[in-house]
């Protein structure tokens, strides 16, 4: 029984490529996190070239179909590459990327020379012997334990399990070694050994991935998902999980698109991974470009709206004072200038419509706007913050009067209820702001979420 059949005739063919793709992609993606963090992202690329001599030698000693030996030959070369790169880096203090370049070009050249000498008449096409193709590899089926599955499935599953176990077992040490090798050595275990283990694991997994999904996709999976995850999070643990998810998503989407456009699925998965990375660059919640612009837009909208409310409140206050005959001119009309984020006319129109919609203002008789009760409450708390801050400035910084308004105007948007509380406590007896205007006493139950003071 082939589990794929459960999906019905046309989807059954899609089951195994996606599953195996997801498995191998996540194994490579998780290992790739450490490579990217240690600035050795191109190691996968180096290994994909360096395995040639291993294959040629294994081919001539073990013959064509002793496939296991070709795999061992390739893996030996992978391990040799990581060892040589590390040796050059430590003893020859050659920078990492140059060391990788020297090592893999040298090994590849040795491979070509051997191939050109021994294999002139032999039909050994390395690109198809070693670098499997996703579509083909996942459809070579075998039967075991009562149901059919692709021959590469057990090996790839084992590779994934090994990676997960390895990363889990050494998560502390790997984390420290990745970020601060000196510290890890001082803590009693040698970063060197761990580094070799990690590189060895990378060599083994990438070589087995070459055979299953081809070097094109394997190398991509060692770099692109980790880089994408790095954009989305700062914590290593989430980075590993996200990286595996991106790898699996690339497998799913990539295969579907490849089926639709009848193109090579390994190549499409790599391309899709690239698109996911681009999407992360644009839409990442914190560092994404879109998120940043969206957030500053929202900020300026809120500030513009609050300025309108404050002005309306002051106008009401002024008219009330005129009625009671004690007009005071000190409080200059609030300048429309708000925090230098995005200040433009359409912001104000937008802000005004939001206020109308939010029920904080209502159209007044003379075509302007007037505060609703809720609006008045917000405005009152705003003006209270403003005046408390001005009082605080005077008390602590002995600033001349004309220096008070502008900074307070800016700060008022960011003073939440608790800060207002603290300000009030630090100015116990003041009820009137430096300009002699009454500080609105009541502390409204403000629904504005607390704004972090700058």
């Amino acid at each position, binding site marked *: 029984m082939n589990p794929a059949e459960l999906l019905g005739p046309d989807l059954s063919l899609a089951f195994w490529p996606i599953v195996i793709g997801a498995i191998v992609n996540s194994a490579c993606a998780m290992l790739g996190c450490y490579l990217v963090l240690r600035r050795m992202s191109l190691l996968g690329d180096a290994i994909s070239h360096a395995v040639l001599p291993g294959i040629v030698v294994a081919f001539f000693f073990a013959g064509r179909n002793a496939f296991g030996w070709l795999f061992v030959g390739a893996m030996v070369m992978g391990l040799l590459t990581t060892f040589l790169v590390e040796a050059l880096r430590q003893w020859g203090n050659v920078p990492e990327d140059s060391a990788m370049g020297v090592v893999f070009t040298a090994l590849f050249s040795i491979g070509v020379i051997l191939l050109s000498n021994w294999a002139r008449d032999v039909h050994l096409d390395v690109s198809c012997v070693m670098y499997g193709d996703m579509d083909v590899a996942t459809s070579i089926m075998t039967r075991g334990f009562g149901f059919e599955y692709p021959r590469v499935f057990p090996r790839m599953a084992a590779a994934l399990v090994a990676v997960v176990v390895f990363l889990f077992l050494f998560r502390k040490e790997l984390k420290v070694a990745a970020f601060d090798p000196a510290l890890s050595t001082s803590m009693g275990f040698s970063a060197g050994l761990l580094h070799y283990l990690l590189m060895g694991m990378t060599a083994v997994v990438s070589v087995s991935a070459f055979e299953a999904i081809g070097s094109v996709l394997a190398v991509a999976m060692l770099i692109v998902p980790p880089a994408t995850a790095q954009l989305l999070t700062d914590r290593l643990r989430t980075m590993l999980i996200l990286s595996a998810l991106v790898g699996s998503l690339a497998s799913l989407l990539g295969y579907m698109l490849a089926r639709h456009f009848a193109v090579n699925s390994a190549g499409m998965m790599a391309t899709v991974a690239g698109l996911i990375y681009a999407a992360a660059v644009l839409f990442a919640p914190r560092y994404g470009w879109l998120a*940043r612009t969206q957030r500053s837009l929202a900020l300026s909208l809120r500030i513009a709206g609050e300025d309108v409310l404050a002005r309306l409140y002051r106008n009401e206050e002024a008219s009330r004072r005129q009625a009671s005959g004690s007009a005071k001119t000190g409080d200059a009309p609030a300048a429309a200038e708000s925090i*230098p984020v995005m200040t433009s006319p359409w912001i104000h129109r937008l802000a005004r419509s939001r206020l109308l919609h939010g029920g904080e203002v209502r159209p007044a008789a003379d075509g302007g706007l007037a505060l609703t009760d809720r609006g008045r409450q917000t405005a009152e708390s705003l003006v209270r913050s403003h005046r408390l801050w001005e009082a605080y400035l005077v008390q602590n910084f002995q600033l001349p009067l004309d220096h008070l308004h502008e900074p307070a105007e800016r700060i008022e948007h960011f003073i939440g209820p608790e800060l207002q509380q603290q300000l009030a406590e630090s100015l116990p007896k003041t009820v009137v702001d430096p300009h002699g205007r009454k500080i609105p006493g009541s502390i409204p139950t403000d629904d504005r979420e607390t704004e972090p003071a700058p």
Partner: protein
Amino acid sequence: MSTPVSSTTQNETSGTSRSAPPILDIHDVTVAYHERPVLWDVDITLTEPRLVGIIGPNGAGKSTLIKAVLGLVPLAGGSVSIFGGTAHSQRRRIGYVPQRESVDWDFPVSVLDVVLMGTYGRLGWFRRPRADDVAWARECLASVGMADYADRQIGQLSGGQQQRTFLARALAQRADIYFMDEPMAGVDAATERVVFSLLQSLRKEGKTVLVVHHDLRTVPQYFEHLLMLNMRLTAAGPTDSTFTADNLRKTYGGRLDVLEAAADALRRRQKSD
């Protein structure tokens, strides 16, 4: 919360007419890295050549301020003008001493090559430094006591010597205003003395020098004007009136170790005058 403070005391401005543009005018500068505000509404105006110390706790944005003024870091808000123009338009008159860690000291260049880089700004495209540029570079090297290290690869220098090389490079720029990012961090006493005497001579030649400094003990002795920074300008003005315990507390918050250092600096100053 900006407190625009003009470094000139009230009577001075009335004396000179305000025709010449201020040497340095930082207006409402705000810098934010990934939504974390690093500098908030900083206002600084320098109209007279001054030896200015920029102090404040770690992460206060001291070197960010310099980088923002020089245009190396994007401003989230506000504006900067040097001698009335932008940093780029006045680039010939600006000297810069970056932090030592910002450079790969294994790079294959000699000490003289590094100092010569200071003259590149005036040379313009394609033209190579000429004999008189080399002579000027050697002169700058001599003024920092590094004359006989000219041909040594920079990787073989000690921390202090590397710092002096950067200093000589800034001198080679023949600038009118210098921005120095912790020139005296982690250097030996001899180098610190050389740097200080250099600052003095620059000041005598009527140049303005802004120095990010971390060692509070030497602040009163080194600088005549202070900018105290902690994400916002907590205090600014002549050292005598600004370097007060109250301002320090406001700038450094309650951290004891820093206050101790400041306290003994104050005691030493009271003893000397």
